[in-house]
């Protein structure tokens, strides 16, 4: 009886701890732990903005904007695109709030966006999943919900403008139409018999890493920045280097900090003169070695 009581008490205590933990996690909002650079925005509205980067309402706005701009680029079929948008699915991986403007309530966010098209339609190459690393701004629209400004989404919008009907992979006429399904709702149950392009669903290995550099690609100006923004491997190097740099600066002595900053400027100049990807990659690897050497007191000034 006495042992049973202790067990019961232990279970109750564990349950209470679990409830506290769940409540804590639920009230934390969307973590911004991926962020490696840029100081955190700690305005009162940051938590709300943080959530708006990753809300279903925001994703719905982004999806509508993708279809609107694709129809605009195509120059026709806006109505069909609007209808089709309702049947498409967007997913955002690693949504991060980059900054917030307390005066306007705007939140600048970034993330890896995927768009899954419904059965019965596909874009060039038969693809039904499109992906891009995007930047987006969510801003209140004079008390009438939010508006979204979407950037760097051409890798989705341009192919989406080639949307065409497909049919089940049965014997059909060899014809691929370039029209958008006029009644998207029918596509799920009755694919058009006019077309035959069989969607080739990308394999997981085709999926990009979704890696972003440590800086905002919307502001990329130099050759080096542009290259890093267009290459997932270089972006990974940049994030790793930035993380190492930030960790080092936070623990460096004044002398080490001065060295870190001096050598950073030289590294950036070197990177931005690089003629190719290999050179930029080597520059990052060398820079990480340099940061390590500075922190371990083994750094020697180049000639």
């Amino acid at each position, binding site marked *: 009886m006495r042992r049973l009581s202790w067990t019961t008490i232990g279970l109750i205590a564990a349950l209470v701890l679990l409830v506290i933990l769940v409540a804590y996690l639920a009230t934390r909002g969307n973590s911004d732990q991926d962020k490696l650079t840029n100081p955190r925005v700690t305005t009162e509205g940051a938590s709300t903005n943080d959530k708006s980067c990753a809300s279903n309402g925001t994703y719905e706005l982004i999806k509508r904007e993708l279809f609107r701009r694709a129809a605009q680029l195509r120059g026709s079929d806006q109505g069909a695109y609007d209808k089709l948008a309702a049947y498409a699915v967007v997913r955002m991986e690693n949504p991060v709030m980059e900054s917030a403007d307390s005066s306007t309530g705007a939140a600048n966010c970034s993330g890896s966006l995927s768009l899954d098209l419904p059965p019965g339609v596909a874009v060039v190459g038969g693809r039904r999943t499109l992906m891009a690393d995007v930047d987006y701004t969510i801003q209140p629209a004079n008390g009438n919900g939010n508006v979204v400004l979407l950037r760097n989404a051409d890798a989705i919008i341009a*192919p989406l403008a080639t949307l*065409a009907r497909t049919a089940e992979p049965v014997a059909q006429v060899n014809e691929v139409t370039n029209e958008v399904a006029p009644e998207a709702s029918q596509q799920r149950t009755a694919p058009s018999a006019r077309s035959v392009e069989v969607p080739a669903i990308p394999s997981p290995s085709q999926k990009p890493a979704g890696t972003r550099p440590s800086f905002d690609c919307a502001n990329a100006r130099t050759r080096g920045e542009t290259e890093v923004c267009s290459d997932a491997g270089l972006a990974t190097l940049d994030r790793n280097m930035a993380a190492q740099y930030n960790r080092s600066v936070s623990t460096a002595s004044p002398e080490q900090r001065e060295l870190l900053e001096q050598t950073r400027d030289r590294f950036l100049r070197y990177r931005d003169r690089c003629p190719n990807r290999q050179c930029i990659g080597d520059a990052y690897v060398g820079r990480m070695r340099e940061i390590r050497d500075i922190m371990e007191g083994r750094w020697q000034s180049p000639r």
Partner: protein
Amino acid sequence: MSEPVLITNNLRRRFTQGEVTIEVLRGVDLGIQPGEIVALLGPSGSGKSTLLQAVGLLEGGFEGSIRLAGEEAGSLDDDGRTRIRRDLLGFVYQFHHLLPEFSALENVILPQLVRGAEPDAARERAKQLLGTLGLSERLEHRPSKLSGGEQQRVAVARALANKPPLVLADEPTGNLDEQTADTVFAEFLNLVRGEGSAALVATHNERLAARMDRVVRLHEGRLQ
């Protein structure tokens, strides 16, 4: 004489930062005839890219007139600017900006489908263009599997896929080593001439500029 593909009249662009205003374009007057290839020379920061952004209708904030194939484009709404970019212009940038998830062939097919081309015709056209540029064996490769010169060739083919009346090129070989740049640039010029398009090509390379039909120089925001 046929109508110019591009006429700018008193084109101006100012950038304001805080209390400082910089006038990058100070009244640019430029005309380009059909099929004419014009070099836009100027040092870094002289406004070459800004001028290309303006005539490519990629940014707003400009004053003055831009007529493309006879249509006043400066005052068009977003839909109108998109239509002109799609139907009248081809772009080649210093960096290829190819879609990484699509093959070389698909990257060249894509703008044709956007414009309403038949898929089979678009595929044949893309093959022909890439073949002309020596990429027949690389059609199914993704951009990441191509060399820098090959990537830029694909970008050239994409720019010309819809036979645009005007190609805008911003340092199209600036990202390549000298030898590759010479080869790609020669292929670019041959293809533009072969297609009968006009081109405005920004460069700071006098040697490359000399290969074009005409050279204009941007100095302190004005053409000389």
